[in-house]
């Protein structure tokens, strides 16, 4: 009986190993025939090309490995911003679709149907080329929020200049730890005595108050450097100082967010609609406020429906960010699977590394979301 179970498994395993071995050998023989070498030594070579936008210190004298890291961080940056913004927008639109207000409901429905039915690449091109052309040249730009400029060359905002940033950072960590203990104490108190402390208000005041106190005591200092118009030639200008956010990043984030938020909105709507009306009524009948009904009864159950498909959307957004190459945002695909691959000619190695990287990012997001999903799932006892 046991043998019957092992044999098919062993045959399947053998089959997989053979197929894998066949492809490896095939690739090896063909590469040898064509005089292509295999190896990862190139990662240490000097990259000798520059990258437009980097979160870490980088120029062409750094290695290909460093260029890879720059691309990876740029991909993570756009994925991170995209996930946060599309989640927020998705929740708002999802709730709006269930609004009793006819106008709000229809506007939300129109937005969802419009943006999810147009190919993403087209949307990226639209936001980059159509919206870009509509923006003013640097010299004609108007002030935005007092100190920023939105131009065809990007968004220029004041940059914070920190003094003793580490002290500020430590204070922030301390505040978070303090908030954690306050919340634990509040929960204990509620369980033991049934009293509710204003947790949110206390937390917020700690979070703002502690850094503010250190600032007033002179522990750290914060000032801003403002962007200033600079003339490059007779009719060409740019901004100097401050922080410049390239239009490629803005267009990409905008397109990814607007596209993915439609799917998340549908998930949110499905989640809320999936909870029976009776739940809400029952919760109200035992005296919970509407806020408590949503927080304690509806959301915990709705989340179980919302989280798994939303995880998929997060993965999609991360993978879709590779379309960045079309509009010159220096993400992993453009920098590493683009320029670096061309300069070194190491197609197999670089594509393998890039695939492994995307796989790792996706698995990490999955793992995180699964862990979260488990923590909110029904705990059967």
């Amino acid at each position, binding site marked *: 009986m046991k043998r019957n179970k092992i044999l098919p498994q062993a045959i399947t395993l053998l089959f997989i190993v053979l197929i894998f071995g066949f492809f490896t050998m095939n690739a090896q023989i063909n590469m040898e025939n064509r005089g292509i070498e295999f190896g990862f030594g190139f990662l240490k070579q000097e990259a000798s090309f520059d990258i437009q936008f980097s979160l870490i210190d980088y120029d062409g004298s750094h290695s290909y490995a460093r260029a890879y890291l720059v691309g990876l961080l740029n991909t993570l940056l756009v994925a991170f911003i995209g996930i946060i913004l599309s989640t927020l927008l998705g929740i708002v639109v999802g709730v709006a679709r269930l609004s009793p207000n006819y106008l709000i409901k229809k506007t939300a429905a129109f937005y969802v149907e419009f943006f999810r039915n147009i190919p993403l690449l087209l949307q990226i091109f639209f936001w980059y080329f159509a919206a870009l052309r509509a923006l003013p040249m640097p010299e004609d730009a108007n002030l935005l929020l007092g100190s920023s400029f939105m131009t065809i060359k990007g968004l220029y905002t004041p940059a914070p200049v920190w003094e003793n940033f580490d002290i500020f950072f430590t204070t922030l960590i301390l505040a978070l730890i303090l908030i954690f203990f306050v919340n634990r104490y509040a929960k204990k108190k509620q369980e033991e005595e049934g009293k509710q402390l204003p947790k949110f208000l206390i937390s917020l005041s700690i979070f703002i108050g502690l850094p503010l106190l250190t600032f007033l005591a002179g522990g750290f200092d914060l000032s801003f450097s403002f962007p200033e118009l600079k003339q490059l030639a007779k009719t060409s200008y740019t901004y*100097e100082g401050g922080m410049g956010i390239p239009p490629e990043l803005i267009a990409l984030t905008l397109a990814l967010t607007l596209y993915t938020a439609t799917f998340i909105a549908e998930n949110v709507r499905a989640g809320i609609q999936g909870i029976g009306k009776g739940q809400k009524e029952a919760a109200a009948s035992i005296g919970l406020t509407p806020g408590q009904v949503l927080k304690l009864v509806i959301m915990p159950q709705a989340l179980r429906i919302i989280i798994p498909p939303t995880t998929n959307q997060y993965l999609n957004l991360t993978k879709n960010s590779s379309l960045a190459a079309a509009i010159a945002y220096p993400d992993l695909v453009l920098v590493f699977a683009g320029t670096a691959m061309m300069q070194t000619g190491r197609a197999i190695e670089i594509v393998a590394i890039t695939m492994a990287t995307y796989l790792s990012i996706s698995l990490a997001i999955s793992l995180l979301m699964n862990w979260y999903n488990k923590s909110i799932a029904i705990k059967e006892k």
Partner: protein
Amino acid sequence: MKKTIKNLFSMFAVIAMVFAFSTEVMAAKKSKTLKNTQKKGFVRCGVSQGLPGFSNADASGNWTGLDVDVCRAVAAAVLGDSGKVKFTPLSAKERFTALTSGEIDILSRNTTWTLSRDADIGLTFVGVNFYDGQGFMVRKDSGITSVNDFKNGISACTNIGTTTELNMRDFFTSRGISYEPVAFEKADEVVAAYDAGRCDTYTTDKSGLAAQRTKMKDPTAHIVLPETISKEPLGPVVRQGDSVWEDLVRWSLYVMIEAEEYGITSANADSMKTSENPQIKRLVGAEGELGAAFGLDNEWSLRIIKQVGNYGESYKRNIADTGILPDRGPNQLWTKGGILYVAPAR
């Protein structure tokens, strides 16, 4: 048992036949690529996605250009018909992989000959069909007239995966100018972004700048700066490891250049057979056995000249008459002050 032995015998017979066949092919001194090309009936040629003057398709899908003519010359030599070419448009990023993986047999796509490309990644450059150099384009009204006018903070649009990106860094770094490189995957997007005002300058090979300028909203609003910041010898590339094919592509190009040197054109090629000059007679196949070295007949070079024309005709048709670069500059014969100098076909 008897059946097994019989089977075994027939297997041996098959193996013996295969061996006999392969030795015969080897004796014919044909390369694998050449043999495949003759079997398929067309030359597989990788070109650009649209660079006027070099490789560009018209509305009905006919490819023309200086780079295209190299592939047409090979088709004329090998298959007797310059039209028997299958063109594959490739991005800068895809081109080498397409060649090394065997999807195409000639890469004729304004590709710069460099040491690392030639020696490192399974490619062999066969020659130079255009001597180019990298330059900068700016808007005329910007008042910039030389690269010396560039200031810190300038943004430069270009393509990824080309030597352009590396030259640009060398240029700006050596001058201590900080710049913002904006690198796109496709040339059309570079042009669109530069034209919209995203960048202050557009940099690529000067021939490319001249060609792309024709695609802009108002071509006269842009100028190419006089400085050339790099050497860009552009030429066809083949896979490493098939020396007969490599020689064949090289000499198809050289025949075009040498034909111009000796004044042989597509119009007078036939009448040149009776020429007094033995080198002319060799080029039109009336003397010598030049084709035999490739396993071809003796009129291979005559077909190239008759069907595609000499280098000068190709240049005039594709680059000069289209207004891209009327002045041949370094791409003039060595006898007329240029640097086109090829080994003699004899």
